């Protein structure tokens, strides 16, 4: 009898251990990023960031004691190819987590697919506000900034610098982000400064290599402000061509994503351009640049890639750190056992992550709240590229859409008093 009882309890014990998953040999993470084409100047640093961080974590055992293996998918091969490879990684390679994507267009297709395949997906870089406003997700999260606070903070900063603004033109890439970002920006602008006229809305093709015609048109129309939410190689080309022909001296350029192009553009980016960083991501972030682990990260990245980190690099860190936090939180809730995908997914809600920028909290609809840093370009002989001056950092809670509301509708209800928002400002130390 006694031996039977012992045997039974051993069986039950083993069964309960079996119920909680054993720690796997490795934690597989698939990452989609642009590794070819004009956006690769943006996507390849993101890849380097992941490699740098994971290499260091693996030295110390990985996540929850499990080493991490990375798989990369090229968004530059086109959405169809990316989707096929995404599925292959999830279904054949059996990755545990996907980090997808950079392109807002790709995110919109990937989010429902991830939910369908029941794989945890952190949208590590795309910005469109639509995803969590148009659907509910259990497996998809965005541990980084998104379009609404980015565009709203840009409007606030622009109106502070140019309160007498009369005419504006937009040159955005013709895809989800280009269209959505303009809708957000123009809605906010119309509410806060109703007498502004939009003189041109130009949407050149994503990946267009030539903006000559757009530049000619803008020169003829002579707007006070030219806005472009372009990024990567497209933005580089636009700036170079516009600068060559003098357009950047005629109109005030507002480039909310240009932090990622500062170093590449070198002397081709003039002073006085309003610059954004999709969050408070900047290698000279005034609130973080003197902190030891921030400096160590910037130096390590520079050593690895010969360039300063740009915001995709920080975004990658934000997602990876959030993932680690989620795993740790899920394991604690699970009594130390390795968590299931669902447990990690559910644990992601509510976590706060501080990864080389102000802390980002992920709220219950899956969206992260990231404070926004904006500045004006300035020359500093210490660097052979433009740096940011007159920096202002806007708090996320005051400029993000409340949960359950649609951004465009919410922006229409803004009060003009928001223009008086007091925020910390910093000058660039020469």
């Amino acid at each position: 009898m006694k031996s039977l009882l012992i045997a039974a309890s051993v069986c039950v014990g083993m069964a309960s251990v079996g119920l909680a998953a054993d720690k796997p040999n490795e934690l597989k993470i698939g990452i989609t990023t642009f590794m070819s084409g004009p956006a690769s100047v943006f996507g390849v640093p993101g890849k380097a960031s992941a490699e740098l961080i994971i290499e260091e974590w693996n030295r110390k055992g990985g996540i929850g004691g499990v080493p991490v293996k990375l798989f990369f998918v090229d968004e530059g091969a086109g959405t169809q190819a990316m989707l096929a490879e995404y599925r292959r990684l999830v279904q054949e390679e059996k990755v545990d987590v996907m980090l997808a994507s950079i392109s807002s267009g790709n995110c919109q297709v990937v989010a429902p697919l991830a939910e369908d395949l029941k794989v945890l997906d952190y949208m590590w870089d795309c910005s469109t506000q639509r995803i969590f406003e148009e659907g509910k997700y259990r497996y998809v999260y965005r541990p980084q900034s998104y379009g609404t606070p980015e565009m709203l903070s840009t409007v606030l900063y622009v109106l502070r610098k140019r309160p007498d603004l009369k005419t504006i033109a937009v040159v955005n890439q013709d895809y989800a982000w280009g269209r959505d970002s303009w809708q957000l920006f123009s809605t906010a602008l119309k509410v806060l400064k109703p007498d502004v006229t939009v003189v041109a809305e130009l949407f050149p093709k994503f990946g267009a290599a030539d903006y000559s015609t757009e530049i000619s048109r803008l020169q003829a129309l002579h707007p006070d402000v030219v806005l472009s939410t372009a990024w990567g190689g497209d933005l580089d080309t636009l700036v170079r061509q516009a600068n060559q022909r003098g357009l950047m001296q005629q109109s005030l350029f507002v480039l909310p994503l240009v932090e990622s192009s500062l170093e590449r553009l070198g002397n081709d980016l003039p002073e006085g351009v309003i610059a954004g960083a999709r969050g408070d991501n900047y290698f000279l972030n005034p609130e973080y640049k003197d902190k030891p682990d921030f400096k160590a990260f910037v130096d390590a990245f520079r050593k690895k890639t010969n360039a300063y980190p740009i915001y995709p690099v920080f975004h990658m860190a934000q997602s990876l750190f959030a993932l680690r936090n989620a795993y740790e939180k899920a394991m604690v809730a699970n009594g130390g056992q390795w968590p299931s995908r669902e447990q990690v997914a559910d644990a992601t809600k509510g976590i706060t992550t501080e990864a080389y920028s102000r802390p980002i909290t992920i709220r219950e609809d899956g969206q992260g709240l990231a404070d926004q840093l904006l500045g004006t370009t300035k020359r500093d002989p210490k660097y052979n590229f433009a740096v940011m001056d007159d920096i202002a950092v806007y708090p996320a809670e005051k400029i993000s859409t409340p949960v359950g509301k649609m951004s465009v509708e919410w922006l229409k209800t803004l009060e003009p008093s928001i223009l008086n928002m007091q925020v910390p400002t910093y000058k660039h130390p020469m």
Partner: protein
Amino acid sequence: MTSQLVLIALLDGIAYAALVFIVSVGLTLIFGVLRVLNIAHGSLYAVGAYTAASFGIWIAAAKISPWLSYPTLAIAAAIVGITLGSAIERLLLQRIYDKEEVLQLLATFAVFMILDDAQRLIWGVQPYFAATPLRLLGNVQIGAVTYTVYQIVLLPVVAVAVLVGLRFYLRYATSGRVILAVAEDREAARAIGINVSRVYLTTFIIGAVLAALGGSLASPTTSILPGMGTDMLVLSFAVAASAGLGRIEGAAITALLIGLGRSVAVYWAPELDVLVPYLIMTLVLLVRPQTFQSRRI
């Protein structure tokens, strides 16, 4: 205001039309003589651009006179056109002249695919930017708009030079007239002792050099990326087809029309700008098929 917009549209269209003409005249010449539609033309354009950019970057790094970047544009085109052109013609095309049309088309498509990967393997996938030839010539102000001299003077001048030079060569130089003879009647030409095989090679090389020249001239104006050949290729098809395959002056006029059409569209109906070349091509093919069918060069 409208007349100013028309002027602006014209000037924008000219640079674009010049490049498209240079590429498509090579395509149309090759078809007129060899009866092969060279899909690899797009790759020759891209490789020409990459090579010119590499030269430009090397010149800048070696700190020698930036004015040397101009001759390197022509040198890059020559190198690419002659080496790749002869390689393609001798190694592949020569063996398939007697094969079915679909197989010939597919063969040049295969070369296009091979060269596409070769570009990525050699030059990588990040964009290249080598704008020195554009910068050096400076700007010119016309009305409210500032243009680069490179785009509204140099490119059209080179395009006109190509047009005139090609016509002179074909009409007055012996080897040029031999090419015309082969285009008109291959068997008769062979019967009077012309080395048709050599004529094919020469013609293909000329076409290839022109494609590469289009690419190298385009390289200072834009960022050079993998896949830059594909759009230019189908555009040159549109021009060559609308002009009548094999017609040189026609190609010039059509390139101008399509270039102007596109920049005008950007001003009045930006949604339609990419549509314009293909609409023109479709309309020409439907309405005036004789244009397309006549093969006199």
